[in-house]
């Protein structure tokens, strides 16, 4: 999806309606530029997708090009939690807590079929959370079992695009644009 499609007519109407003070929009633009270009992920991986996440960070695919280099082990300092792998009932409270420990603004990427919907463990399993969105709000879903590193990179770029449309001076616009 291209950025111009992402800003569909409805969004543009909204822009027109709410107008926008020049100073405020500039502040928004600067902050969004900073936030979107520096999305530090939390080192959080539960299973197979974690390996692909590591592969994305490694030499060939190189996350760092997008400024997503600094893996933080502490949730306080991370911006995005890439839920890479299955979340089970025992892990769900821990994940919720991790999410709560992160400082705003925080984003969630559900990576892989398990995090999106439970994936191969949807049926017949007694201990799997069917989709991480039962526990925490998700910004970007990346399908695949596991998704290729390219898919993760694309997901990250979608997240950056989403962050660029946020507004701290007009929070109501952000609400409409999808971040609940």
């Amino acid at each position, binding site marked *: 999806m291209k950025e111009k499609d992402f800003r569909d007519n409805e969004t543009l109407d909204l822009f027109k309606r709410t107008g926008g003070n020049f100073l405020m929009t500039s502040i928004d633009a600067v902050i969004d530029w900073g936030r979107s270009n520096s999305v530090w992920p939390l080192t959080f991986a539960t299973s197979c997708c974690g390996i692909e996440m590591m592969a994305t960070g490694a030499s060939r695919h190189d996350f760092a090009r997008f400024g997503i280099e600094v893996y933080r082990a502490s949730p306080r300092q991370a911006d995005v939690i890439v839920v890479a792998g299955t979340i089970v*009932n*025992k892990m769900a409270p821990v994940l919720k807590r991790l999410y709560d420990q992160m400082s705003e603004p925080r984003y969630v990427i559900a990576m892989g079929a398990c995090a999106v919907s439970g994936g191969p463990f*949807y*049926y*017949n*399993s*007694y*201990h799997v959370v*069917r989709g991480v969105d039962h526990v925490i709000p998700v910004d970007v879903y990346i399908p695949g079992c596991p998704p290729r590193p390219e898919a993760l990179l694309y997901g990250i770029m979608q997240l950056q695009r989403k962050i660029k449309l946020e507004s701290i001076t007009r929070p109501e616009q952000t609400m409409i644009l999808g971040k609940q």
Partner: protein
Amino acid sequence: MDNETLKARILEIVPEAQQEENKQFLTLLLPAAKLHDLALKLKNSPELAFDFLFCLSGVDYIKQLAVVYHLRSTQHKHALVIKVKTDDRVNPNFDTVCDIWRTAEFHEREIYDMFGIRFNNHPDMRRIFLEEDWKGYPLRKDYIDEVNIVEF
């Protein structure tokens, strides 16, 4: 030691043992009370020397609950399967063997977690995978969980 001599040797120790049919291993069904004694002898007598418990699994035969011990001797390279069964589905229990083979400590906790079979004298008999307040034992055939399981 080949299977025949092995069988004869074990029947010496536990005369009540019954052989079960299995192509791969010598499989013996034991009365639960004799399990710990036999296990000690299997580990410690030099000509048997079963020092490696390479699999320990619980099986639910609907009427009975069973625990299967796969044993091998790293020295003599012979293998043996021991099986114990109980009819008691409410409060099944066996003697622990984790003082003999340390690896049993975790495996027995797993069996307790999945089948609800308790092991006497086990140092730390708690659930290992599921939460402490989990209701029921998932690998039993009569386990019903309408909340968590989506049937295919």
